[in-house]
């Protein structure tokens, strides 16, 4: 009698399924290359924006170095997360959840205020925006929640919403309307991928519409104005519509091939508000024109479809949910940000993944993509013969 190997538990420890060169073959190369290209694109745009920004007082080279440093940290995080079996993320989901709530609470207590909102904490000299990480962490928490339960049971959905309520409330308090919306968009995408019944989702959505007036009245006046003004920015061209009109001018004046890197005129003259973050796409479209924007779109589409492919190939429900949820989240952010710059969406202040400056955003996305590579490297076990 030959000794048959004991089937290993699927959620094995790295000790049972150590990283090996063989696994590298299962890396999602398309996903990785797209990621590298997008990070590089972000660095170039960061440099261009800094050069154009005449309000910037620091050293341009140092600013570029900082961007490179964030990218290096991001890729390191990605590599580490990819090496660990993604099941561990699921195992630690409760701890991740508690940590997320703690982080968001810390911001409210000791955070810095900019433009009326408290979103940053400084750790060892680095400005750190916990809500960026909270978005990724909540995908992990909810992916695990749905993976372990019957998604077709409405109680599972309600439970998921309940889990999400606390971080949404904390982020809303900062106040950060945009991130709150990303949480909700991510929830629907994730529940959809996990297989929730469509009419359940529709019911939740209608309930949301029903409480909309209450939420609306709790918004600050500037938030209300930003949300509606995109419908007709010329109604208040000097006030709430100003940002959108200037953004449209920036995008439009880029024309087919753009004005060239560092040659944009809208952001340096101060017509483009928060050019390095919220309206970063307008600056890109101004500098590089339709061609540059189209290249960006292609990269985004390839990235998102690769993520969905990882979901499809995942060996377990948690991995599939995680990959699908992250894809939904990134897609939501990209569409809202770009939609804002071209006046198809309300102004909500969501950063554009990879392109907007900010270490927290980039590193949290790298963390997420690392998890996707981990899923990719551990596909469905080939039949053991």
């Amino acid at each position: 009698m030959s000794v048959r190997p004991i089937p290993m538990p699927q959620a094995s420890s790295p000790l049972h399924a150590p990283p090996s060169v063989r696994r590298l073959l299962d890396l999602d190369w398309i996903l990785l290359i797209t990621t590298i290209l997008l990070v590089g694109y972000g660095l170039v745009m960061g440099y261009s924006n800094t050069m154009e920004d005449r309000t910037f007082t620091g050293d341009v080279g140092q600013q570029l170095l900082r961007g490179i440093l964030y990218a290096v940290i991001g890729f390191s995080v990605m590599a580490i997360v990819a090496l660990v079996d993604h099941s561990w993320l699921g195992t630690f989901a409760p701890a991740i959840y508690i940590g997320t709530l703690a982080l968001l609470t810390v911001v409210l207590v000791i955070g810095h205020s900019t433009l009326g909102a408290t979103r940053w904490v400084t750790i060892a000299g680095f400005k750190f925006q916990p809500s960026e990480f909270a978005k990724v962490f909540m995908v992990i928490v909810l992916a695990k929640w749905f993976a372990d339960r019957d998604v077709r049971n409405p109680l599972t959905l309600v439970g998921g919403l309940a889990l999400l309520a606390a971080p949404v409330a904390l982020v809303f308090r900062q106040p950060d309307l945009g991130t709150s919306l990303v949480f909700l968009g991510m929830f629907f995408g994730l529940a959809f991928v996990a297989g929730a019944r469509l009419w359940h989702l529709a019911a939740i959505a209608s309930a949301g519409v029903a409480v909309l007036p209450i939420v609306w009245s709790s918004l600050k006046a500037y938030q209300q104005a930003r949300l509606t003004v995109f419908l007709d920015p010329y109604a208040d061209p000097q006030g709430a519509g100003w940002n959108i009109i200037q953004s449209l001018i920036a995008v439009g004046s880029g024309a087919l091939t753009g004005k060239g890197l560092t040659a944009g005129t809208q952001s340096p003259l101060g017509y483009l508000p928060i050019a390095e973050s919220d309206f970063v796409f307008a600056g890109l479209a101004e500098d590089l024109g339709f061609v540059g924007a189209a290249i960006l779109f292609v990269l985004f589409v390839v990235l998102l479809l690769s993520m969905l492919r990882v979901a499809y190939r995942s060996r377990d429900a948690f991995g599939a949910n995680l990959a699908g949820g992250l894809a939904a989240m990134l897609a939501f952010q990209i569409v809202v940000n770009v939609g804002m710059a071209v006046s198809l969406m309300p102004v909500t202040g969501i950063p554009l993944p990879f392109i907007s400056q900010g270490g927290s955003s980039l590193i949290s996305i790298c963390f997420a993509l690392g998890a996707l590579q981990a899923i990719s490297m551990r596909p469905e076990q080939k039949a053991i013969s």
Partner: protein
Amino acid sequence: MQDARAFVHPRRLAAIALAIVGVFVVLGVRLWDLQVVNGAHYRELAEQNRVVRVPITADRGIVYDRSGVVLARNQPGFAVSVIPVDLPRANENEVASRLAPLVERGSDEIVKAIAQQRERNPYEPVTVSSKPLPRETALLLVERAELYPGVRVTADSVRQYTSGPLYAPILGYTGPINEEELAERQGGSYLLQDVIGKTGIEWQYEKYLRGTLGWREIERDASLRELRTLALVPPRPGNDLVLTIDDKLQRLLNAELEKGVTEDRFTQAVGIAMDPQNGEILAMVSIPAYDNNAFIQGVTNTQMKAWISDNRHPLVNKAIGEIYPPGSTFKMVTGLSALSSGAATRNTVVNVSSNVLVVDGWRFYDWRVHGSLDFLNGFAHSSDIYFYTLGGGNPYTGQRGAGPDAIAKYGRMLGFGAPTGIDLPGEAGGIMPDPLWKFAKFDEPWTLGNTYHESIGQGFVAVTPLQLLNAYASVANGGTVYKPHLLKEVTYDGKTVVTPAPQVARKLEMRQEDLRLIREGARRVVTIGHAYMPNAKLPIAGKTGTAEFGESSGVDSAGRQRLGFHNWFVSFVPKEDNADPTARIAMVIFTFDSSRSLCDVCFNPAVAMTQHILEQYYGVADKK
């Protein structure tokens, strides 16, 4: 196998993929429309998008004395400012080093100012010249504009105080607005480089003096040259102020007091004159003072340190900001308290048969043996024992005194122990003590000795010169305590905009005959020669005072001997030589560290100065 992978929903993933592609197609179409179809239109808009709005500062209002003498004005000149967004960072050091010799500042200072403005609001100009520049410099900058990107030359004016230290205690000065002041005034009417009143009248009437900012919208081409003015909202200059001050009297008073300091008859001095019938301040001198023009050009650290460490407090307006024991001038309060509370009448007689009153082994001195005194003579001769008795009574003769509570009550009625409410910042309240005050402050009971000391203006009681003057003024006008004020009217373009009415703080709840008795007594102080005025031309009435406090050894910051011996003379001039409440002028002079004298009379320098000033002011002085 199919069952094992039930967790993957390929159709849903496909749906999401389709949605993503669909949305990006929509975005792409929108972009195509904006950039390719309408690109030319938007490019035109971007070209036009080069309008800047620059503020035009308004001239600050001018300050006049009551007869139109200019006390504070604006000196025209040119200012150089930099708009940080228009100055490429790469050229910053180069431009700064070119500007430095022209504006006479270090190029590192200029770079710093620009860097700070970049952080605050780079679309607003920051002034880099610290004083008005001559026309030639301005022309040089304008003609070679290509060498100075982002640099603007504007007409600017700078505050100028015509008489420096003479009016510094009243006018105060202006200075660059600081972050706190700016934060308090959120609302857009102040700019970062703005000037704001820091103290004195400049602070008090900032709202009148400051005008309204104007704005100019300028269209510029791609190289930021100004093409044309699109819109102009002219600034509105500030209102002018006419003060109640009479420059002639101010100068007379100042000259007399300065002379006294030069001749070393005293080291510091305060003089205030007011119209008792309405509370208008006619003159207010505080010596030593400071030159407020220095603050406009930017005070050096050494100068500021010297002023702050000077123990004569040149930055404080001593007429309102410091408190001193009033000495014998306070006998008016003791007297009115005794008369009003029924403890004394004009016929109350005290026999001062010794120059010392001994109570419980404590000795209370008078400056001489007066003999038998009634109220009028007790006041005129300034007998200490007479007023000990009126204030605290005499336990041996059983004579009743007003008592500390009555003195405090009538003292407060006369305005002691609280600011008078003059329209200047930094007014002290003084101390009007009573038994409760002492108990709260020292946890000790009030003693008869406290009453005695208070009765002659020593001990705890402390007043500002203005409070003392205002109290005498209220007696001189027949019982109305006015709020002293410096603002006569606010004008714009020569037309009166605001005329503040005299404000009555309160009426004295005292009998007219008692007030008349004090006026009679005050006149008698002069007529009997207690306050010696040889060859007097005016029916001046008044009260002398001597106060001993403070250091009596060593020297002050000017190297003058400290004597701890100070003199008062507070006076008023009725229209005719009678006791009617008709005085149109009241004056107080306080001399600090006066040359030591043995009695209240002998060398009180304030008396002769008062006579001299008033006679010259009314043009009745002897020609010399």
